[in-house]
């Protein structure tokens, strides 16, 4: 072992607990990214605990001054004003995020082959997907606030009349709230929506910034000179985590 030719080879041959060896066989940066994501998962979990407890103590019933049915609120689609289209827009957002996750993982794969042009191309696709998602979320927030969502109150409770009105319209029919359809509901409804989707949106925004930085580094040949594209993998881990959080936001805020 005294005269090793390559540092890396000697590094890998060390016994696990002697020091000088990565027990998980990942790089320092990637391990730290995983640790960060774990702590971030805890952060999102605290928000989910808060949301779940509030929600379960205000059980959803169709006719309610309790937790509002998401289908009665998130039923808008851009350029289709006044139509009842629950879940459609948010499914499109989910599709955009899944697609950008795939282009990200394709960039990672191209990085393994050290193909600079392909990495750059897939990074551009990923950035476009992220910006598209953020735009969708901005529209969603705008519509929600326009409908009367406030941090300190909730006017999305549904009366008997409102329930009959809502159940009489089908998917894609024209729908506008009438007087007396809505009443007050549990106060933290909109606040929790804004906090959780806002926190997730902020993560998407940071992800886009990270991806732009990594893209510029790729184009300028930083990774080419470095000899490996591991930075793409680290950025990718973060980006997939954002997608992962969205899976649960989608499930708990829109589906259930």
């Amino acid at each position: 072992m005294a005269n090793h030719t390559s540092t890396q080879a000697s590094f890998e041959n060390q016994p696990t607990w002697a020091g000088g060896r990565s027990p998980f066989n990942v790089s320092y940066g990637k391990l730290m990214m995983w640790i960060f994501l774990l702590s971030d998962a805890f952060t999102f979990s605290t928000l989910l605990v808060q949301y779940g407890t509030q929600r379960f103590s205000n059980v959803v019933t169709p006719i309610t001054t309790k937790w509002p049915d998401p289908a009665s609120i998130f039923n808008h689609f851009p350029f289709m004003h006044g139509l009842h289209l629950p879940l459609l827009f948010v499914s499109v957002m989910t599709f955009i995020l899944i697609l950008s996750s795939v282009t990200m993982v394709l960039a990672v794969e191209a990085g393994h082959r050290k193909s600079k042009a392909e990495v750059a191309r897939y990074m551009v696709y990923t950035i476009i997907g992220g910006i598209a998602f953020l735009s969708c979320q901005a529209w969603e927030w705008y519509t929600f606030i326009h409908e009367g969502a406030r941090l300190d109150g909730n006017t999305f409770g549904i009366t008997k009349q409102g329930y009959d009105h809502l159940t009489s319209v089908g998917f894609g029919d024209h729908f506008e709230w009438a007087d007396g359809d809505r009443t007050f509901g549990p106060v933290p409804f909109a606040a929790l929506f804004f906090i959780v989707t806002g926190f997730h949106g902020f993560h998407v925004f940071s992800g886009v910034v990270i991806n732009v930085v990594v893209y510029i580094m790729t184009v300028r040949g930083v990774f080419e000179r470095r000899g490996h594209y591991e930075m793409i993998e680290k950025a990718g881990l973060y980006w997939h985590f954002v997608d992962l959080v969205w899976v649960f936001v989608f499930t708990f805020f829109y589906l259930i």
Partner: protein
Amino acid sequence: MEFYNKPGDYDAINYIPHTESHGTKELWKTFWLLLGITVLDFVIYFVMPASGWRNFIFIFFGLVKAYYIVGAFMHLKHEKINLALVILVPMVFVLGLISGLLYEGSALEVMKSL
């Protein structure tokens, strides 16, 4: 046992394991799976009336999607098992906490109506 004192011998900060491309087949398979489950979510939402079972299906599908994102996209399936456990075991406890507090939430509901 030998210790490394010379600079450049021991370089944990700059150590990068050798990686190879495994092709894009698994990645596209995962994409179609995630897309399929999302479409299934959408269909079930309209076909099935709201119930505890429907919520169970949605949460189950969410966990399946999480498995494929973490396993295939984040490559955790192909990492060392120790790393995977360090990350997954704490999350199991967190899931336990979430389900426990949901139960407590419905107890709050009962108490508020007393």
